[in-house]
């Protein structure tokens, strides 16, 4: 199969933004934390967009996949810390476990919830997230509500200096890499039959079936892909960066809401959208907290409402319509 490089042009603006973020963070003092936060929001949007944006199904329990990813890393480190010589391999095992666990959860949830549509799906996924959290707490799985704290194990496994570098630098780099990978997979799906099938089922699921599209299969593909990236993100941005995991934090529904806002701000189902949405959301959250501490949400809520009512296609959605028919069309997807 020959690969047409022009198909991947739309990655250029996405990767350019990620590179600029990295360079700003690396070279300007005091900017790394802000860039790390923006990278997290971009990655979150990019990962969630693969399911939410491409299928139109609203997974209100999305954060659960980040939660199990965080647990995956935490369990790998706490259980395997005594095997000396694994070194950085331990992190790789942790990332793999995070992917496996989020895949398994996605399969279980998908089997139940993906039979449902619309509001029923959204409510079912809220149920999964909350149910899973309370199961962990109630049955005292993985230390129950006390959570897992593994600063000491991080230090033991990687040495104090490396553990600190992992937490303050490499975890954020990993988040950027995850965002970049998620963008690549998004574009790859868009350019393959998967993307066309997802567009069809998002617009009209019954018509899609009559056109020969196995909608269940494609929904599951998008669901699992999106879940795996969430699991990785939990492992990197939560477990490695802050080596502890508490059920009420990693299953907090507000992260799902933030992800939805980012996708919507940028433009659901677009490639560049989650990046733009992540930047707008992250920057305004950051600066509002400085300018008007305590009032961020009061200002945010009406803005969100106005955007939903007046600009439902999001920034990149609108931009896409603008550049239709120009050369920019090849870069903005």
């Amino acid at each position, binding site marked *: 199969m020959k690969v047409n490089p022009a198909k991947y042009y739309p990655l250029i603006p996405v990767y350019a933004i990620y590179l600029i973020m990295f360079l700003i963070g690396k070279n300007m003092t005091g900017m790394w934390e802000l860039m790390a936060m923006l990278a997290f929001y971009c990655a979150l949007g990019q990962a969630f967009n693969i399911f939410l944006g491409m299928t*139109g199904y609203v997974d209100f329990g999305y954060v659960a996949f980040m939660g199990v990813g965080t647990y995956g890393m935490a369990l790998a480190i706490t259980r395997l810390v005594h095997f000396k010589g694994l070194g950085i391999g331990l992190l790789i095992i942790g990332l793999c476990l995070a992917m496996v666990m989020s895949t398994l959860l996605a399969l279980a949830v998908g089997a139940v919830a993906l*039979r*449902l549509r619309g509001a029923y799906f959204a409510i079912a996924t*809220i149920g999964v997230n909350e149910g899973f959290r309370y*199961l962990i*707490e109630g049955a005292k799985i993985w230390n129950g509500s006390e959570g897992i704290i593994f600063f000491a194990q991080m230090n033991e496994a990687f040495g104090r200096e490396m553990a600190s570098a992992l937490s303050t630098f490499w975890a954020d780099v990993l988040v950027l890499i995850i965002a970049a990978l998620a963008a690549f997979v998004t574009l790859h799906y868009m350019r393959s039959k998967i993307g066309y099938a997802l567009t069809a089922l998002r617009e009209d699921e019954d018509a899609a079936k009559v056109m020969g599209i196995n909608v269940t299969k494609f929904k599951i593909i998008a669901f699992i892909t999106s879940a795996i990236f969430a699991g990785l993100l939990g492992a990197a941005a939560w477990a490695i960066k802050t080596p502890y995991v508490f059920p009420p934090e990693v299953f907090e529904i507000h992260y799902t*809401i933030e992800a939805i806002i980012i996708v919507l701000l940028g433009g*659901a189902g677009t490639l560049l959208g989650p990046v733009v949405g992540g930047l707008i959301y992250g920057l305004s959250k950051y600066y509002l907290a400085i300018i008007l501490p305590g*009032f961020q949400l009061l200002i945010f809520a009406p803005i969100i409402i106005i955007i*939903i009512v007046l600009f439902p296609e999001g920034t990149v959605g609108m931009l896409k319509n603008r550049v239709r028919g120009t050369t920019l069309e090849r870069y903005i997807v």
Partner: protein
Amino acid sequence: MIFEQLAGNLIQGLVLGAIYGMATMGLSLIFGVLKVVNVGHGAFIMVGAFVTLWLFNALGIIPIFAIPVALIIGLALGFLFYYTVMRKLIKAPELATLLATFAIGVLLEETIKLIFGSEFRGYNWAVGKINLGITVLPFTKLYACLGSVAIAVLLYLWFNKTRAGTAMRSVVEDSEGARVCGVNVDGVYALSFAIGIGLTVTSGVLLTMFIPVGINPYMGGSYTLKAFVIAVLGGLASPYGAFFGGLVFGLIENGSYTLFALLPNVEPFALTRFLSFAMLLLILLIRPTGLLRAK
């Protein structure tokens, strides 16, 4: 001993369940008519709780008289948000309506926080209690329960005996058909949303009569989640289903807590929550029309 405790908790559960049921009717009404899930549901309950608190603590008005005030405020908020936001989203995808109702909830929470602050508050309306032997019921809880039943009955009568109620039912059945038959569908949407919000704010009064403490701007979240479970128990689109769903939920919540507390090495409160969400999933999977519907 354990049976007495269980029986006592079940009585409490039934009383609370009636209030839960009433507190979910608004959610089901709005979903039934507009096909919109109000993710900001709990925030409207919170508004009702603050109305009660403020009337009682600042003006000395007892919670029973807070009911009509809450209803009027709720209707007003309902019409306001319908005409400014929801009306434009009737045909929008779920993503838009879910996020919009969530944002409305946040707006309410933050506004209340701005006015009243975010600390936990409560009020003390002592009017005596009855001792049933196995459990003690303050009259406030009984009033709240009776109030819930009365409101449910009134809503039923209104639905079935008035023209507006009939129009609403016709829109639930088939909005296009109703439009063709000359029903003012937009008007029905507005009225349903307003009544749904009115009921929900009112339920905030009744809930604080049962639990007069822990009132704070962010108290709504857990009620939203409970309301989802209850609404699904009742079939999501049926206000009466929701009322009975509330009774079932109240019984299961209190009954299972008593039983889980007997197990070693678990957290009974969390397991009770787990059970309710497991129930939600099970019902959505095997009987999405709710427990009570025959079909």
